[in-house]
Structure formats: C-alpha cells, structure tokens
C-alpha cells in the first residue's frame, strides 16, 4: 500500500513537472517577454538591460529553476493586460468558479445517483427508458448550447431566472466573495450550475445504472434476499455502496473536467470566474494569466486524483489490509 501511494505521488509530481515546463516555455518562447512588458519607445539598450535584469540571458535550467521557485510562491509575474500580479487576479476570480463547480457537482451527484439507482432497479419501466434516451441526447449536446437553451427558456421566455452574472455577492473576509448568502446570488447559480453539471449527471446516472445491474446479479445480493432483508436495505445498503467505488473515481476525475468546462459555462453566463478570465487571457495573449491558470488547474486535478485514491482506501476495506488491487489509470 505504501508503494502504491508513493507511485501515485510520483505520477502527480511528474504531471506537475510537465505542466511547469509547458508554462515556462510559454513565458520564454511565446512572443518576447521584454516586448510584452515595455512600450514602443524603449531603446534597445534599455531592453537589453531589462533582459539581463529579468535573467533572460541565463542558461535554460537556471531560468527554469527560478520559474519553479517563483511558481511555488505563487508568483507568475504581472499580467500584461491588467498590470497587476497574475496570481492576485486569479485569486479574486477563484471563489466564483469554485462555488459554481461545487454546486454543479452536488447537482450531478444528488440527481444522477438516484436516477441511476432507479433506472438500475426498474430497468424496464417507461420512465427509465425516457431517462436513458434523454441522457443520450444530453451527452451529444455541447455545453454552451445547453446553456443557451437554458437562458432562452428560463430567462428570456419565462423570466424565472437571471440570464447572466452572479447576482449580489457578500464578501467573507479578504479573500472570499460568496453568492450563497443572497437570494439573487442563489438564483443566479441555478442555470449555470445545471448547465455545467448536466453532462456529469448523465454520466453518473449511466454509471450507477450499469453498476447496479452488475451488482444486483452478485451472490451476496442473492444471499441478502435469502436472508429476508428489506428491499430498501438491499438496494441502498448493499448494492449502492458497492457501486460507489467507480462513482467516486469518475466523480473525482470529473471535478477536473468540471473546472475546465466552467470556462465554457462562465462565458455563456458571463460568470465572473477564472475560466472567463482564461479565455480573455487567450484572446489577449496574456501569458502570466494563462500560465498561472494552467498551473492552478493542474494542481487541482492532481490533488483531486490523490483524494480519489484516498477515498478508495476508505470505502473498500480490502485495500486497507494489504492486497492492493491496482486501479487501471
């Protein structure tokens, strides 16, 4: 088990290293960093001085070492566009994205799991078939299209919910602004969260369903029936818990995807999160922001992957006592 954890951490470090190399290369080779920092009037001499001061004439590995050192401290330089530290701008946008992603994941789990259980138990009912067909269509729809349809139906035609923005936010301390504490903030969350979570919801539903069908065929479920347990205990106590392992994996991996897909949802709903910031950065070739976003998102991916592994050990007692089943990556 120890070796397993070590290998996992090693893999994570490797991913971070590769991402760091990419981020660093962006700084170094995409455009001229000096050119990006100074105005047109600066003389060649001054430019050369700045170049020397920035260490751009140092050998590659020295520059990369400095980059890593700064990155660990959260220093990615000053945004070309905003003229403020990139990490500071990202930090301002982080709460909006995290709150949106959190609600989206909760929505996906709270709706996806019960629907999966239902379609697994009542696999021949009309409602199950309806769920499965609509989910197939849902999977084929691009996220932004779902968002536009949502806006059109619930904001433009029905006027139930706001079409964009985050509503009123409350500042919690210095670093966190939340939309959870106002009515308009909560209302503004609904459409984007559903849009963002819909794909994962159908994924989780299909996963839980196929796992349920699988588990319900096992001997211990037959034996549980033979023991006269109530159906609720069989379905929710025994079957569901055994479907949770794959659900945890997928959900964990999907949280990464959700944060990436938040880019799209935030653009559709004009949501002031870091995904929207990232798109603007790409449009403006604002390398510090792009690099900082990339590193942050990778870090989140990697941490979530490690948490998923930890949850595995928590859910499955067989793993705690040695015989590690290698999980295919």
């Amino acid at each position, binding site marked *: 088990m120890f070796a397993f954890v070590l290998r996992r951490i090693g893999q994570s470090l490797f991913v971070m290293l590769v991402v760091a190399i990419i981020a660093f290369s962006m700084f170094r080779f995409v455009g001229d960093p000096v050119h990006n920092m100074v105005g047109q009037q600066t003389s060649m001499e001054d430019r050369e001085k700045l170049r020397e001061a920035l260490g751009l004439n140092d050998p590659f590995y020295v520059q990369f070492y400095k980059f890593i050192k700064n990155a660990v401290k959260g220093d990615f330089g000053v945004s070309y566009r905003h003229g403020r530290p990139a990490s500071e701008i990202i930090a301002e946008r982080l709460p909006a994205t995290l709150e949106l992603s959190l609600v989206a994941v909760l929505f996906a789990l709270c709706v996806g799991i019960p629907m999966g259980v239902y379609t697994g138990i009542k696999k021949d009912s009309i409602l199950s078939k309806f769920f499965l067909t609509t989910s197939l269509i849902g999977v084929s729809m691009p996220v932004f299209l779902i968002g536009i349809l949502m806006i059109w139906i619930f904001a433009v035609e029905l006027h139930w919910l706001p079409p964009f923005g985050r509503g009123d936010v409350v500042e919690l301390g210095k670093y966190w602004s939340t939309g959870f504490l106002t009515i308009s903030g909560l209302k503004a969350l609904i459409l984007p969260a559903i849009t963002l979570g819909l794909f994962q919801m159908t994924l989780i539903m299909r996963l839980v369903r196929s796992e349920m069908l699988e588990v319900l065929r096992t001997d211990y479920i037959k034996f549980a029936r033979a*023991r006269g347990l109530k159906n609720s205990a069989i379905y929710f106590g025994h079957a569901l818990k055994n479907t949770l392992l794959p659900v945890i994996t997928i959900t964990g991996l999907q949280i990464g995807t959700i944060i990436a897909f938040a880019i799209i949802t935030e653009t559709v709903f004009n949501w002031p999160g870091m995904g929207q910031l990232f798109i603007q950065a790409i449009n403006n070739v604002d390398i510090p922001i792009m690099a900082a976003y990339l590193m942050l998102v990778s870090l989140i991916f990697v941490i979530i992957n490690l948490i998923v592994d930890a949850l595995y050990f928590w859910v499955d*007692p*067989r793993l705690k006592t040695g015989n590690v089943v290698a999980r295919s990556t």
Partner: protein
Amino acid sequence: MTEALLKVENLSIAFKSRHGELTAVDNISFEMAPGEILGVVGESGAGKSLTGSALTGLLEKPGFIKSGQILFENRRIDNLPYEQMRRLRGLKIGAIFQDPLTSLNPLYTVGFHLVETIMTHLPMNQAKAKDHAIRLLTEVGIPAPEKRFEQYPHQFSGGMRQRVVIALAICANPKLIIADEPTTALDVSVQAQILRLLKTMSKEHGAAIMLITHDMGVIAETADRVSVMYAGRIAEIGPVASVIKNPQHPYTQGLMAAIPIIGHQAERLAQIDGAMPRLNAIPTGCSFNPRCPKVFERCYHDRPDLMTAQDSLAACWLHDKTR
C-alpha cells in the same frame, strides 16, 4: 411420520424463452418432517437448485412456478405476495449458498451482516442483536468471536466464511434451511467439518435441512432421507440407508455403481452411458429411457410416477405392481 413441515405437491417450474416454455422441474411431490435432513442429489440441470429457489420464493426470471403448490406449516407459500414471503425468508426459512466467498458483501463487516439480519427479523435493539450475533458466532465454532465480529469477509478463510453464512442462516431459528451445495467450494478437509456443523445445528435448533448436492458421499454422511432427481423429476426418494444399499431405480443403481468403494478392487468404475437430456429434448415416456439398461417397451410410451419399491419410492415401471 409426524405432521409434515413442508409439503410440495405437483410442483412444476418452467422458463419462458423465445421458443416457448421449457419445463425444468416437472410435477414433483415430496414432504419434509420437522428436523429432518433431506438430501437432494442429481446432476447439474436436474432441477434441484431450482426447487430450492422456489421454496425460498427466489426463482429468478424468466423462471416461474407453472403449477402445483408448496405448503409450509400447512400454509400455502408459493403464491404469497413478495413482502410476506420476504418476512418468511430468514425468519422461518433460511438459505445457504454454494460459494461462501461471494455470499458476503465485501464492504461490510461480518458483524454488520449478522446484526442487520437479526434486527430485520427479531425485536432486538443494536446491543442485544450484537450479543446474539456473538453467541451465534461462538455456536458455529468461530474462535475469538468478539474480534471476528469487527472483521471483514476477506479476513476469513473459506471454511470460516461458510460458518458465518450458516450463522446468518440460523439467526432467527428457522424451521427449514435450504442448503444449496454448501460444501462444494470448500477444501475436502473443511467439508466434513461444515457438514458436521450443519447436522449439529439441525439437531439443536430442530431445523429441517434440505441439502442440495451432486455428491452422494455428502448425502450418505449427513442426510436422513434422499431424493434423487433426474431431468426435472424425482427418480427415487427414500431413507438414505436403503437408497444407498438397495437402490430401486436403474438411474440410482448406476449412480451407486459409479462410486468407488475403498477396499474393493475394481478393474474400472462403472458409468452410465450417455448424458442427461437437455430441457428441450426430453424423450417421451420415461426420461431416462435412452440410457436405461433395463428399458422395455412401456418406458417409451408412458411416463412413470413415483411408486412403492421396497422401503423407497421410485419412478420406474419395473415396480409397477399391476404389471
């Protein structure tokens, strides 16, 4: 015989398939007395496991009871609604399956399984159920039950797990236990222990056991009476001693001749030629007729029912008194 605990009357079990119905268990009848151990023996596909499933009300689709009835304590149970049958399962009718490795949910402790079953059927709170569970574990011969209570199935050996499964089956003192191949998946050395345990449990709790197996040796060691099944029907049923020593049906005779006897030198073991027919190809008349060494004209036309043959009942025209 005292008042029967279980009466199976003219039970037929069939499968719905694309090609119409296939009858897997065909018009069988038998009784079980309280506390009696009835062995059910036969090749795979003879219908013995299906009969067991029907008794617990756990026939899996597309199988269904086509006709006949099952009476348990003089009450019809084959047509009970799901919920009532569920209450009976585990409380009055326990079950033990073949593979103890897969009978327990790997994600729950042994104690959880026991407490859950006890609290489903008996009016006990958590603490009392736990005491009862530990008592049961002791009773089925598991050392250090308090410690074992907290452990997960994968921490138990196969034999120990089957003991847990037996403890689960006798939780609520059932009157009848269906044991479907309870020792097949175990090591030979462990088999005997488990059989002994089953026998003890039957005596101490006064539970009747229907012991389904393909191993005649297991029956000889454990059962009071034995029912030999062939192609969905009972070929012969009677007291173990007489069926083994003095088999009446040609199929049983073949089975007995195929068992090696220690101390006897035999050139080669006898065997029954051919194989059991498939469900969709059961011959008319007696289903054993293609393989029977004593077959005669009538066997090809009429299907024999059970008839008295010395101490047993056998479904064979050789024993037809009106002949």
